[in-house]
């Protein structure tokens, strides 16, 4: 029984939150990785693109709710998502046409593009705060839990509860669908293959008649979709605050780099590595030992490796470690 309790404890506090946060990071890191491999720069504005997506979802949610369209028990955000994705894609392409295109034509260095993306970040951040305000917005509605801790306890008779929030379930399911679609697109369709060719060797791709503007266009469609979904899911899960997305950029970059920039599988794995190490390092192991060890062996103290305050800092520490030990990331980067 104790063993089962221990397992439940781990899945409740590490497994499920890790899977959720990991998929959010993975979706974000995928966006960054794809922009990096096709357009060849680190897009600091990606966090704000995610925020933009979440914002459009919220605005549309309010609109739909005022029209009394909802999807009870699922949150309204689900019906809204396709429209929000379209708007985010539109915004990304607009930004590309007005700003990034110029530097692409000039063949600017990647650092210049990076600084340009910081300008975009500032502008988008300002725009978002201007439209929706800097405050906290909770746009979750519908049933809160798929599985309540209490129901689980009653059902199994364990003393530890296992809860699965609706947002967590949605995040994991949607991420899987999106990732499967993305890989199908990249590996099976002709357009996806041409994109990979372009990312792999630009000159050769141009020689074989691939239209660069079309590749860029599709890149932004994918990036916009990923950004919008990731942003909305993150906002749904943890309530939406515009400024959190600036801080989310760094864990996302860490995820992309840890996995190997330019490699989509790497981005996904990187996301989960970051998410799980954040949880594992800051988890208080006292209770686990309580279940797995005989009573007289359980030490006192919380048994945390690092206090919970350092949760986000861990992603940077991992980033530094990876840069030190294996700068190319887990998977060698730069290939789609």
């Amino acid at each position: 029984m104790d063993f089962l309790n221990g397992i439940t404890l781990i899945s409740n506090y590490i497994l499920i939150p890790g899977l959720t946060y990991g998929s959010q990071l993975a979706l974000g890191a995928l966006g960054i990785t794809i922009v990096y491999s096709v357009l060849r720069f680190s897009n600091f504005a990606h966090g704000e693109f995610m925020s933009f997506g979440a914002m459009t979802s919220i605005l549309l949610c309010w609109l739909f709710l005022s029209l009394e369209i909802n999807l009870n028990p699922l949150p309204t955000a689900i019906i809204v998502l396709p429209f929000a994705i379209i708007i985010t894609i539109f915004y990304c392409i607009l930004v590309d046409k007005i700003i990034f295109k110029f530097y692409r034509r000039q063949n600017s260095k990647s650092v210049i593009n990076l600084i340009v993306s910081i300008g975009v970040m500032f502008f988008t951040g300002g725009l978002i705060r201007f439209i929706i305000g800097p405050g906290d917005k909770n746009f979750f509605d519908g049933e809160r839990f798929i599985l309540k801790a209490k129901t689980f306890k009653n059902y199994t008779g364990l003393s530890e509860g296992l809860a699965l929030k609706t947002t967590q379930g949605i995040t994991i399911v949607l991420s899987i669908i999106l990732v499967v679609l993305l890989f199908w697109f990249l590996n099976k369709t002709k357009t996806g293959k041409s994109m990979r060719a372009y990312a792999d060797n630009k000159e050769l791709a141009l020689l074989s008649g691939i239209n660069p503007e079309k590749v860029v266009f599709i890149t932004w469609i994918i990036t916009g979709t990923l950004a919008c979904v990731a942003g909305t899911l993150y906002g749904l899960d943890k309530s939406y605050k515009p400024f959190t997305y600036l801080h989310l950029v760094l864990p996302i970059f860490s995820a992309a780099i840890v996995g190997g920039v330019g490699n989509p599988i790497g981005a996904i794995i990187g996301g989960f590595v970051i998410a799980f190490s954040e949880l594992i390092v800051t988890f208080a192991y006292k209770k686990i030992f309580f279940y797995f060890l005989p009573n007289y062996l359980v030490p006192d103290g919380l048994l945390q490796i690092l206090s919970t305050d350092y949760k986000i800092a861990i992603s940077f520490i991992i980033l530094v470690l990876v840069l030190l030990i294996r700068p190319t990331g887990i998977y060698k980067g730069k290939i789609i």
Partner: protein
Amino acid sequence: MKNRSRIQILYFLMAIILFAVGIFQSWNVALTIFNLCLISSIMTLGINVQWGNAGIVNFGVMGFAALGGLANIIISMPPTSNAWETGGNFIVIGLMIFVLSIIFSVFMFKRVNFNKRIKYLISFLIIFVGYFIMRFMVDSPIEQIESIEPAKTGYLGGFNLPVIISWPVGGLLAAFAAFIIGKISLGLRSDYLAIATLGISEIIIYILKNEDWLSRGVKNVNGLPRPVPYEIELQSREWVLETANILKIPLPEVSSIIVKLSYSVLFLLVLLVILYLLQIAVKSPWGRMMRAIRDNEVSANAMGKDIKKRHLQVFIIGSAIVGIAGAMLTTLDGQFTPVSYQPLRYTFLIWIMVIVGGSGNNFGSIIGAFLIWFFWIQSEPLGLWLLSFITSHISDTNLIKSHLLENAAHIRLMFMGMILLVTLRFAPKGLIPEVKR
């Protein structure tokens, strides 16, 4: 000499703008802006050495500035009574053991010949063990120190020395951090370097936020000593009273203007010294070498220049300058608030200043700092004014209007983004371009 006339015109313009603020708003506001402009321009000088002259992307401005701020606490605050006796020594020893374990593992990694995987494993184990020894030694003393009058102190305190010493010490702290960060990350490509420095600066901020025994964390350290007299003190002085009478300005205002002016003098002195040194450095063979490395690393390497060493050198110098500015900023504020260190305000805004002013030109960086800081402060009222102008024909009860006016403050982020984007598009070399030598 197109550049020289540009410098003259822009500096003159900036002076007029500040004077206009002094006349139309108040001299207090003008001087507050001026002081922060001076500090920002020192920070931009630091970044300009790295980016403009050596092409290094340092996004760690925030961290170095915060380390400068920390120097204020360490130097100027009185030591907390009993804190050292209760366990300050244990903390120091514990930290030293951890640092030694890192040094030892690096040393072992470099010297011992083994399979690479085993080497990583052993290094990791050594650091891991060092970490737990440190935790074992440090945990209970930290708890004790943090429980000494937590509302007032609860930290180790400092050395009770004049606060001005903290400026060079802030520079040294930042230089030391820059040495370590540079060793870790300077071998990386520019994009990675940017992200790595940004990440490390966040780690620094997290440490300052959470290690209460060092910096009181989110409880802030208030009441840092000042290098200049207090307003109350001034108000009882004879000559201050007289000036107030002659100028017919209320006494409190006169005294606060005098305080701000004395800060300005101090900051201006530091700025001029740093500017002078940097100008010499840029013109010297060293500056030429830096630019050669920036423009073509391969050929500079072929000429026998040690690129890694030079990059590390310039990274340390620039970061130390940022550290000095950070220390000055905390002295000006009179308090150390780790929460206030945001990458948007410290790292990215400083970068906008450098880019807009003209990367590679010290005078450009300074004017960039002045202009951008001025806009950053004034774009809030400007945005409000703009929006009330646009919405003036809409009735006051309209929801959209009230919403727009409420969020007007955030228009400044948009302004900043637009300024940066417009500069990069139409004047990529900035307001005062680098001098062709």
